[in-house]
């Protein structure tokens, strides 16, 4: 365990050195004293009073975020995705589905807590139903019998709860490994994660290695079910698109 910790902390140090190096190089460089005008200079093309979708999204830490974005690509490509693909090769499909159902069922607890916090009777009632159904008849959540019984699934987290009570997005953030987020959702994620950890420790009292296995399997299952690949959208404006679509999706999620 000590060894793991040491490796993790040296990885963290390395990570922040990379950040520090990268953060200072975000301004475009001009060669020569006078700017050579392009065929379509922005001053001539963009109307002065135009407003844009991105105006609604604060991103004061863009340089830093882009650095994390690149780190995530490398982490994905050289570690995360190879592990995911090994997992998919080794485990038969039905077992993967079982793992996926299991963690989805655990996540119902997060949804349940946040449905209560959002004072939604319907979501609370349905989510409780799903959790009870799947934990019992679905053998600890390995089978998703609640969906077969047509009980609607909800996904609520503390970021959405904060949004429900009127908390704004805050600045856009790209979180290491986890990807696009914002201050509100980042705080929400921390709260949900800590809450789940407390509940897990209280109910199961896992050993450290068991807890790590739990967390890593959860992470691999989550990544296996997200199709997104960094830098594969075919757009030089991918970062801007991800920022816009993430923000839009969360806006819709909070209303639901």
């Amino acid at each position: 365990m000590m060894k793991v910790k040491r490796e993790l902390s040296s990885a963290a140090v390395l990570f922040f050195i990379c950040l520090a190096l990268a953060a200072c190089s975000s301004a475009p460089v001009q060669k020569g004293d006078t700017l050579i005008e392009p065929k379509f200079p922005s001053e001539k093309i963009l109307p002065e009073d135009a407003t844009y979708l991105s105006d609604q999204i604060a991103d004061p830490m863009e340089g830093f975020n882009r650095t994390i974005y690149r780190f995530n690509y490398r982490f994905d490509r050289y570690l995360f995705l190879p592990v995911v693909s090994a997992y998919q090769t080794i485990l038969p499909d039905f077992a993967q589905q079982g793992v996926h159902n299991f963690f989805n069922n655990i996540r119902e607890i997060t949804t349940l807590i946040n449905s209560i916090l959002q004072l939604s009777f319907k979501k609370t009632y349905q989510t409780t139903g799903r959790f009870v159904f799947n934990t019992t008849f679905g053998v600890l959540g390995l089978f998703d019998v609640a969906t077969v019984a047509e009980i609607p699934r909800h996904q609520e987290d503390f970021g959405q709860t904060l949004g429900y009570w009127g908390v704004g997005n805050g600045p856009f953030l790209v979180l290491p490994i986890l990807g696009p987020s914002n201050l509100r959702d980042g705080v929400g994620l921390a709260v949900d994660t800590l809450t789940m950890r407390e509940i897990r420790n209280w109910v199961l009292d896992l050993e450290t290695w068991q807890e790590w296995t739990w967390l890593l399997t959860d992470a691999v299952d989550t990544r296996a079910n997200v199709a997104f690949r960094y830098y594969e959208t075919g757009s030089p404006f991918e970062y801007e698109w991800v920022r816009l679509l993430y923000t839009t999706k969360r806006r819709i999620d909070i209303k639901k």
Partner: protein
Amino acid sequence: MIRYISALLVLLWMATGWASTESYDYPFDNNFIATVVGTPSEYRAELPAKIPVKNRRITIFKDRKVPEVLWHDRQLRYSYALQKNPAPLVFIIAGTGGSHDGGKNTNMARAFYQVGFHIVSLSSPTHMNFIVAASNSSVPGHAIGDAADLYRVMERIWDQLKTKIEVTDFFLTGYSLGGFNTAFVALLDEKRQTFNFTRALMINPPLQLYSSVSLLDRMLENIPGGVDNFHRFYDRLVEEIGRVYKRSDSVSFDEEFLYQAFAAINPDNEELAALIGTSFRISSANMAFTSDLMTNFGFIKPPNIYLKKNSSMAVYNRVAHRLGFTDFFHIYFFPYYKKQDPGLTRELLIERMSLTQIEDYLRTAKKIEVMHNQDDLILEPGEIDFFPRVFGVRAKIYPKGGHCGNMDHRDNVAHMVNVFKPSGH
């Protein structure tokens, strides 16, 4: 008597013609809906959910200089799925801005793999990754240049695969711009003969690139209030999708939900045209800006400004989405190629970027087939007639489907597969 018989024959012919349209049960008569929605699941061909696809990267130009912001696209990404036994190999070329692992390429790959072919799937020469890693000029959209780039890529990939598999025949196909590319690659192959394609299939190709891209550019005029109001159009769309999402039981934006949303919102033709126009505008912005970064032409970015990995691109993003394919053609593409050939005129260049340029070849090349839709949105009125006129029986024209909307329909998939099966002819 002869008149009666001929009248009877005409009637019979009409009846069979009728019958064949009647039995084609693709559900949307509106070509805008068809283009946006595609084929609902109950009309689709049954395809395997998973095939053993490998995603790979390959270096095409060893000494290529790539600007810092495009560092991630040095190598070309592509995919293949191989059979264990000797089999034909199909190259699949994606349409405008399309990726090798996009939805249409993936479905075609499944269909061809299922009937026992090796498949190699390629991104469009207009895709960012292709422009950066595999385009010789990095100025895409040139019929002959793109074909040469594609051919080089195919040869390199084949170099790596030929030790692994045995190939009995080479086939070639592509949809939309990829269908157009297919014709010019097939023509190039006559000279180069690396593959000696035994058959090629063009799916919903444009006839004349310039007229198709002008049509697509004009579709954006359907945004209420014009392009200046794009953000309002987007906000309203999101608002409406959000409203449907709130009421539905779905927790993800899956295909089924999008059908639901579509039915609930029930957009009119103008809104659909605006959507289609937006989708192509995104492709043209990606293509033009990537190309500009590669050649430093000074189309959108000042040529003496160099972007860093973390530089914000907000301003260029906004400008790029205000310019269409036709701006790219007149202000960048044409001057770029005129520099290499001072006698070149706009009219000449437009004429050259057209299937009519190789009409004689297409008429005689029995190996090339085409499938198209009578109501395809990327064709000007009357342009569709070119295909039956030139290809004769090698043209299969469906009565509906819009632009590529019916590609997943079971009849269309069956036809695609049949074209490549020896028993099909």
